[in-house]
């Protein structure tokens, strides 16, 4: 059973979103990091880039696979986790904490997005 924090919202593609001071912090779920196994590389989007919900914007690679990360909501990238590329293992050890990827300024209010609640995501991944 993976860890699915209740205060976050989730995309079907396994990204999580935490709203904090008007910004959306984005990472990947515990389920996702477990499926990936040891993360050895991450590629983050450029600050200033405008993303549409569902757009591929980052890459996470394990020894065996490379996976795209998709913008869970539309918005502008205002900050990235600059320490993450040098510490890719944080994605495995702290997927909801130090392993965060980037922060977006949302283009639309939260009610307008189609993110899943923790319960909905949990029933998706089992």
């Amino acid at each position: 059973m993976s860890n699915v924090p209740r205060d976050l919202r989730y995309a079907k593609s396994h990204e999580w979103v935490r709203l904090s001071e008007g910004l959306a912090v984005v990472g990947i779920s515990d389920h996702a990091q477990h499926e990936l196994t040891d993360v050895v590389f991450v590629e983050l989007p450029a600050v200033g880039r405008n993303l549409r919900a569902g757009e591929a914007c980052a890459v996470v690679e394990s020894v065996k696979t490379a996976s795209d990360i998709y913008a869970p909501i539309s918005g502008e990238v205002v900050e990235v986790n600059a320490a993450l590329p040098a510490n890719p293992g944080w994605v495995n050890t702290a997927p909801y904490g130090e392993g965060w990827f980037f922060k977006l300024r949302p283009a639309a209010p939260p009610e307008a997005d189609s993110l899943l609640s923790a319960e909905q995501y949990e029933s998706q991944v089992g």
Partner: protein
Amino acid sequence: MLKRTPLFEAHRRLGARLVEFGGWEMPIQYTGILDEHKTVRQAAGVFDISHMGEAFVRGSAAEDFLNTVLTNDLRKLGVGQGQYTLLCNRAGGVIDDLFAYRTGPLDFLLIINASRVDVDLAWLTARLLEYPGRDEVQMTDATDRLSAVAVQGPKVVEFIDAVFPGSFAMEDSLATRPSELKRNRISVFSFAGTPVWFARTGYTGEDGFEIVAPNAVVNEVWERLLSVGTPYGLKPCGLGARDTLRTEMCFPLYGHELSEETTPVEAGLEVFVGWDKADFCGRQTLVAQRAEGTKRRLIAFRVAAGAPPLREHYRVLADGGDGTPLGETTSGTMSPSLGVGIGMAYVPVEFAEPGRPLMIEVRGRRYPAEVVKKPLYRRPVGTVPPKPV
């Protein structure tokens, strides 16, 4: 329905993540590829290699017959010695790479790749039918009744003798215990009365053994290894770590660096060809390539720090300007030992010298790389494995 080795339940109990490999359901990892890789380099790891094939070739003409189909020279082998060798088609293309052991004066054991068992045996059978001395050769496929495990790492020699308690040398044993075997040597030992082969070889670059056992006892061998080895740091390891370990050593993997479209000379394996022996399948092409040179060569390279992990089928380009395409990577990974992306590729021979800059294309971006001498990984000074004889 995927095939399963006798150790399948053991893998499940250990929580292994299973994948399909060559028609088999095999463990790709247990605790994690990076952890398992590091464990083999620093302590010890045990791998299920039961999916591999075993064939016995015996008789007064066995050596001569095998010398007509394998590249390396079996005349070099005394009883209990083994050699890496290749099986080539008539154009010098590689059908398989394998290990051949002389287990008796007229007896040979071949250990062949899981993905090539059927192809190899069909080829050998066909060649044997054409061989004039075929009445003096008996070939048996023992794949279905034999299993195998590989136990690899600097600590293995410290616990391997305890795996079989009591005296386990058999009448024909070369050594009284496994730890006395020199590199590339094989002997039979008694595992509670059942003969089991121990060979001091491996595919990781570390010291260790490959143990070939009848299906009925391989679970006990596995459990016994874990029981005596765990206090020394032994862990079960899967195919993921097996791949990163062999890539660091630049050991070829059939289907990647080797195929029927590549020759041992192009792959840099000339030392495993018996140039002085009588004719063998593919010899003509190999001799010509050795004399005239080849158009392409297998190289190893590393990318700059910070580049993504490498994988197979990434484009390799000439450095600078137009970035002329040179080929594709045959293998690649993020080297757990070196912390950078590493790989191998066939490139035009002009680009094959160590130090030559290249570029590797990953997702449309180009990253600087450099050709390096093989192997990519070298054991730290002072920790040399036993010398081959």
